[in-house]
């Protein structure tokens, strides 16, 4: 089902929705970020993509999991109690298809038959994903090579097509339909609009020109790539900061810390990064990834070899290109994947 909205009407009626917490792309300084729609925030849908991925909306960078008391007089002393949290209905408006796809990749880790992360799943289930297709993918985009596309519907509840003055919205799920009922002023789309959208989609797909060799890489043996003598050279420029992992919509690693103030404490889960030496530091003092090349190798092996081997469903990357754009030393996953595939 397709619906057509004048852009202005669509944006104005977002402000009137009270029963969802709404996230929109908004410009702040030089960059766009997903921000809760509140007074003073103007949605800007003429963006390429947000600087940070929307992963923190479902998976906050720092999350209080439990609280505890260290006061022996307290009947609950030393017992972990789940921290109180709210899980409001929420909607991400204008999420790019690569980022929606990324949530499906991350879902394999947080919501699977063996493990269900209670907080990730509750937030995910309460979120409606209203995508915005990419009319103009960039040179750094390679979604089509990793199972997605500039108008991919993976992980979306509805997808918007930017037709200039209007948004054409294709409703994909009941969740999407329920949310869109709250937007005023829409009308049924006409055949010409749908044709226009199809044309935009085809043109956008054709714009993605990348030579990343995923298929060839998937066929290589894990040890063959792991032991190859390419890693020292590849890793030289890397400064081992957390930009790539923290901007990545599919990196999911975390660290758990207890923070105590006087006799009360919190158990907190923070994002962590395989680029940091402390990530693998053992209590004994031994560090299996003490050298930089081992950490760099881990990041690319995990995304492009271990994940595919474990889940048999493509790579742990949705092709958004954030790591390529923001890396201070130009570590380019496309080039590295190609080096790995040519071993």
């Amino acid at each position, binding site marked *: 089902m397709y619906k057509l909205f004048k852009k202005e009407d669509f944006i104005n009626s977002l402000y009137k929705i009270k029963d969802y917490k709404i996230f929109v792309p908004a410009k702040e300084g030089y960059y766009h970020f997903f921000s809760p729609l509140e007074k003073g925030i103007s949605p800007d849908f003429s963006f390429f993509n947000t600087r940070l991925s929307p992963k923190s909306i479902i998976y906050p960078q720092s999350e209080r999991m439990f609280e505890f008391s260290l006061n022996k007089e307290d009947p609950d002393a030393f017992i972990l109690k789940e921290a109180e949290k709210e899980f409001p209905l929420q909607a991400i408006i204008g999420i790019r298809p690569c980022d929606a796809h990324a949530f499906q990749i991350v879902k394999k880790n947080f919501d699977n038959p063996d493990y269900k992360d209670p907080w990730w799943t509750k937030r995910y289930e309460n979120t409606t994903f209203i995508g915005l297709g990419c009319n103009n993918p960039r040179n750094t985009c390679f979604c089509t090579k990793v199972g997605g596309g500039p108008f991919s519907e993976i992980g979306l509840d509805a997808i918007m097509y930017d037709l200039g003055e209007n948004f054409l919205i294709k409703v994909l799920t009941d969740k999407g339909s329920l949310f869109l009922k709250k937007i005023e002023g829409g009308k049924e789309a006409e055949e010409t609009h749908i044709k226009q959208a199809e044309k935009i989609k085809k043109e956008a797909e054709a714009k993605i020109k990348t030579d990343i060799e995923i298929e060839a890489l998937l066929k290589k043996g894990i040890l063959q790539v792991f032991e190859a003598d390419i890693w020292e050279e590849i890793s030289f420029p890397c400064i081992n900061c957390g930009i790539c992992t923290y901007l990545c919509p599919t990196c999911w690693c975390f660290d758990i810390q207890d923070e105590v103030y006087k006799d009360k404490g919190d158990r907190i889960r923070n994002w962590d990064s395989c680029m940091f030496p402390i990530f693998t530091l053992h209590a004994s003092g031994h560090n299996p990834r003490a050298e930089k090349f081992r950490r760099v190798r881990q990041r690319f092996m995990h995304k492009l070899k271990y994940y595919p081997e474990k889940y048999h469903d493509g790579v742990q990357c949705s092709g958004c290109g954030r790591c390529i754009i923001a890396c201070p030393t130009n570590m380019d996953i496309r*080039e590295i994947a190609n080096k790995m595939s040519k071993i």
Partner: protein
Amino acid sequence: MMQHYTEKIKEIAKRLFEEEKIDIFIGYEKGTNPFFPRPTLISKIEDVNKLIWNSNCALNLCNYLTGRKERIGIIANGCTSRSIVTHILENQIKREQLYIVGIPCEGMLDYRKIQAAVDNKEILEIKENEKEFKVIGDGFEEAFNKEDFLQENCLACTHPNPVIYDEIIAEPVSTRAARPEYEDIKEIEEMPIEKRRFHIQKLLERCIRCYACRNVCPLCYCPTCFVDERIPWFGKSIDPTDTLTFHILRAFHCAGRCTDCGACERVCPVGIPIRIFIKKLNKDAFEIFSWEAGLSLEQKPLFAAYKKDDYDDFL
């Protein structure tokens, strides 16, 4: 001019390998992002042709020297050369190991300003001559004056020419600023304390603690950074107080050592004007002790020197 510099660097690197004066050469190569040329380690003479120089070579290559054992050729503009001096004084590398190829520097381009000037369109290539540069993307091309797009630290640069080198690739350039300029810091100093705290916390609001500012900094070579202690003594979350603690403490660690190369600010993924933290300490070092870091190998590090008439009003 940049083309000329590039050719000159290749020529020198080639000669150094031929004469067996170096084992490796550290410079930049062209990558896939025109704003972030890739630092590269050349170990074979046939690879010297990869080397480039342009107005986006704005990291501080001294960062790649720490603890290396080889004989190293390295390119260094003003700020990088001063960081190398600091590195030598702090025993992180030996002077005898280095063959420093000095580069008189005209300043680096601020890619955020450039992106904004082309309405955030994707820039695929940059061409430059002495005064101008041209950005090229899919279906567009636009030319600008370099002068209008220099990084803030370059506009205030007091030492564009290398202070230490074995060979310099061109005539020294004229110095832009006669003495360091701290107007932006004065403005913050003059704020009432509550407003100042609010202002600084607001600046750091977007920090994701990726530590790119720390890792790109040649001063931050501690084997274990205070934020990476296994038994942490302050929080690792993005709680505003903890984030602030990280930035303030890192700045204090860099007091009297920073050459204002601007790499920390350039690489910040969320655009925090990080320089102001260390710049405040640079200001104090300059105003109180007439000190600028890394100017000479004869000068003891600020905190290793004592003079009877040193400022001590804080005691």
